[in-house]
């Protein structure tokens, strides 16, 4: 029994549970709202939507998720294997670089590639002398898939890298000793890595379902864009809620399916063994492999940075630096506040989950409903609930922060719960036996030990919040523009170059904490 005991079980107190219940209730409100409002949408609304919109949207949205998941699995796992388990030249540096595209939001990627590959774009200019008059349009499904693949594969890459690093090389050696080729070795590794790969694909899938900016800029209708149009165009909350409910069900199905896949095929390593890190010599494949990695990095890091810097230099002077500082400060303010609040309110929830009671698990699940709620839906619920019941809250920064916290709470809860699980319960017992009160044992023993997890949770929430677009567009107070908003505003008018400076600032702002996390070897926490 004692093996299963950890600090979480020892710190349960009435107030903490009450706090967890409040947090879970608030976090669960948007989901509740969507269900109630969708059920209340008239038969007419449902009829038109089910007949005219839902089938097409289902096909596009699911198709996009399937294509992007498959491609990121190949790309992410391939890069992870090359940088972790082979003698690829410069692999340590490359491993960090391969994760960095996470700092470039897919909608920024969409702005860049819409300009480069769009009509009369740079590529067309290069190809024109060769007689190419018109490129196939970048806009639509293919363009959206292309951009999402390039900028979401790091999720798979990070988890696969962590999985590979922890994988006992003996399996690889056994395959080789038995005469198996590299294909069989890869298949064996894939089986053992299934949980990590499934987690990565799940994150990518959830991202694709919730993406608004990249698909909009690529002119592709998915659930999020139509929900946004229902809200921003005709302001029809029941119709938006009806569509949202379909998207929530879809997201939950993907979530449950992904978690099943992750847990279902688990192969256990018996014992840690002697985990000497072996690398597979690539031999003659070394240089082609390196070329491949460099090409991927060129597309996901090199080209975007060159383009953004170019645009920024071009438009310097056109835009007031003061405005810029204001947008960056707003981004920092809203993301920083959201991260702090999320880290604080996630703690009682993580403790409730760690206690392991049924009630705790229910609270935990409710508090993590943000996973199934794309930004547009959280915003929809926030507008409707605040205008109806808490009207002073409407249009304030506080509402935006609350929406962010609800949306990103799952990440904080996960980080803190895994941190709590690693703190032995005997430490709390020892403190208590020495006469410390529960509160004191928590404050002086558990909390300091939990600090790395709290810091990691803060960074992860900050990193996601600073890039958030759709909820910000809908909920921001009057005159409150953030960097993502300032990327979006010119980009939706097709003025891609004007989005450059804000996009560059945004990328730098997200890259800083990302590099800190990557270098501290907590990379997998991002996912």
């Amino acid at each position, binding site marked *: 029994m004692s093996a299963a005991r950890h600090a979480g079980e020892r710190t349960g107190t009435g107030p903490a549970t009450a706090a967890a219940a409040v947090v879970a209730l608030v976090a669960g409100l948007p989901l509740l709202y969507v269900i109630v409002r969708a059920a209340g949408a008239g038969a007419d609304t449902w009829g038109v939507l089910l007949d005219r919109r839902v089938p*097409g949207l289902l096909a596009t949205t699911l198709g996009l998720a399937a294509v992007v998941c498959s491609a990121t699995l190949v790309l992410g796992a391939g890069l992870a294997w090359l940088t972790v388990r082979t003698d690829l030249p410069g692999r340590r540096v490359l491993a960090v670089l391969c994760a960095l595209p996470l700092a470039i939001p897919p909608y920024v990627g969409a702005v860049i590639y819409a300009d480069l590959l769009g009509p009369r774009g740079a590529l067309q200019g290069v190809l024109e002398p060769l007689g190419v008059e018109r490129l196939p349009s970048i806009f639509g499904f293919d363009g959206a898939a292309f951009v999402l693949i390039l900028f979401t594969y790091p999720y798979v890459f990070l988890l696969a890298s962590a999985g590979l690093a922890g994988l006992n090389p003996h399996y690889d050696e056994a395959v080789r000793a038995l005469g198996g080729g590299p294909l069989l070795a890869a298949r064996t590794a894939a089986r053992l890595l299934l949980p990590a790969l499934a987690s990565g694909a799940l994150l990518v899938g959830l991202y694709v379902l919730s993406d608004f900016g990249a698909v909009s800029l690529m002119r592709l209708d998915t659930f999020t864009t139509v929900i946004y149009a229902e809200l921003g165009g*005709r302001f029809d909350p029941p119709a938006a809620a009806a569509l949202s409910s379909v998207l929530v069900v879809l997201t939950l199905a993907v979530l449950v399916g992904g978690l099943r896949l992750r847990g279902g095929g688990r192969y256990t390593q018996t014992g840690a063994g002697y985990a000497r890190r072996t690398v597979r010599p690539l031999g003659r494949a070394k240089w082609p492999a390196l070329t491949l990695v460099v090409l991927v990095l060129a597309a996901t890091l090199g080209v975007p940075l060159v383009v953004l810097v170019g645009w920024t230099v071009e438009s310097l002077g056109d835009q007031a630096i003061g405005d810029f500082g204001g947008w960056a400060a707003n981004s920092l303010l809203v993301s920083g506040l959201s991260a702090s609040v999320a880290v604080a309110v996630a703690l009682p929830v993580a403790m409730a989950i760690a206690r392991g009671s049924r009630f705790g698990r229910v609270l935990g699940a409710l508090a993590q409903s943000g996973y199934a709620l794309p930004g547009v839906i959280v915003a929809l619920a926030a507008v409707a609930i605040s205008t109806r019941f808490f009207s002073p809250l409407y249009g304030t920064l506080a509402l935006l922060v609350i929406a962010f916290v609800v949306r990103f709470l799952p990440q904080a809860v996960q980080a803190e719960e895994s941190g709590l699980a690693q703190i032995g319960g005997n430490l709390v017992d020892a403190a208590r036996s020495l006469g410390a009160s529960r509160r004191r044992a928590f404050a002086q023993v558990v909390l300091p030990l939990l600090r790395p997890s709290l810091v990691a949770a803060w960074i992860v929430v900050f990193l996601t919040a600073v890039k958030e677009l759709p909820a910000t567009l809908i909920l921001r*107070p*009057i*005159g409150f523009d953030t960097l993502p908003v300032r990327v979006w505003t010119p980009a939706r*008018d097709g003025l891609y170059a004007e989005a450059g400076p804000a996009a560059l600032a945004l990328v730098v702002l997200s890259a800083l904490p990302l590099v800190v996390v990557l270098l501290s070897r907590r990379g997998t926490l991002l996912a």
Partner: protein
Amino acid sequence: MRRGALLLVAVLLAPAALSACGGSSADLVVYSGRNEALFKPILDDFAEASGLQVSVRFADTTDLAGTLLEEGGSPRADVFIGQDAGALARLGEKGRLAPYDGPALDQVPAELRSADGTWTGLSARVRVLIINTEELPEAERPESLFELTDPKWKGKVAAPNATNASWIGFISEMRLKRGEDETRAWLEGMKANGLAVLGSHTDVRNAVGSGEFQIGLVNHYYYELEQREGSPVAQVVTDQEPGGFGAVVNASSGGIVKGGPNPENAKKLMDFLLTTKAQEEFAGLNFEYPVVPGVPTEGLAPLESITGTGIELARLGPQVDKTLDLLREVGLES
């Protein structure tokens, strides 16, 4: 314990700090459905001339109208500026606008403002086709909107989406003049013909200017702006034959929000927008038609030379929801 206490204090203080941030200190709050690039210079001039601190929310006209309706009896905005008259007429009907009377209001033609003074046109515009001249020689250009469902234009036409109030106003006029069935058939024909639905008028004009599409459905000044950027574009004012549909003439409009926090400053802005100076900016910066006489246009064909549809703008108000329903049914929302 100290750390725990600090955390607790931080959590307790956060809502207070946040609500402090939420309060607005502006002297005047404007909801602007007009594009920031086109309207901000004029507001900046007003702020400078009046010394008032102006706070603006730029978004789609439809979005802001919905927001204002949702805000109910305690609106945040003082002045509402819309891309088209229909949005204002709808707000007026729902009792969300206060009557305005100013020194220049009488000079605005009656057909460009409401009878009860709840809203007035600020600048006029004509719906036109913007044409890429490299892709489409003069002889081949369509002269009627109703030609555009012809298969020969398949995949060559772009329009804004249903968050665009001018586009909604245009469809409303077609519904009023040609009836529900013909409008639906036209929209379905356009959709079947691969009409590209883009994010905004600016996106449409860029896409036509670059040759991605041959034809775009826009307000006339988007043609003027694109042409002045050096793109190979021309405009066609459609359906001008005698007895034809005519061209849709609409007005960007403004009104004072009923119950807004700063009614006096709201009136000052409305007065300013109808001054010769502001009207010159609408005409000079944006190539729109001024609504008060005596202000020159920037090389535009006189408004009187264009045959309109004859639909009064005030009639567009009750049509907004029905037009949005139709666009949704046809699947041309976004």
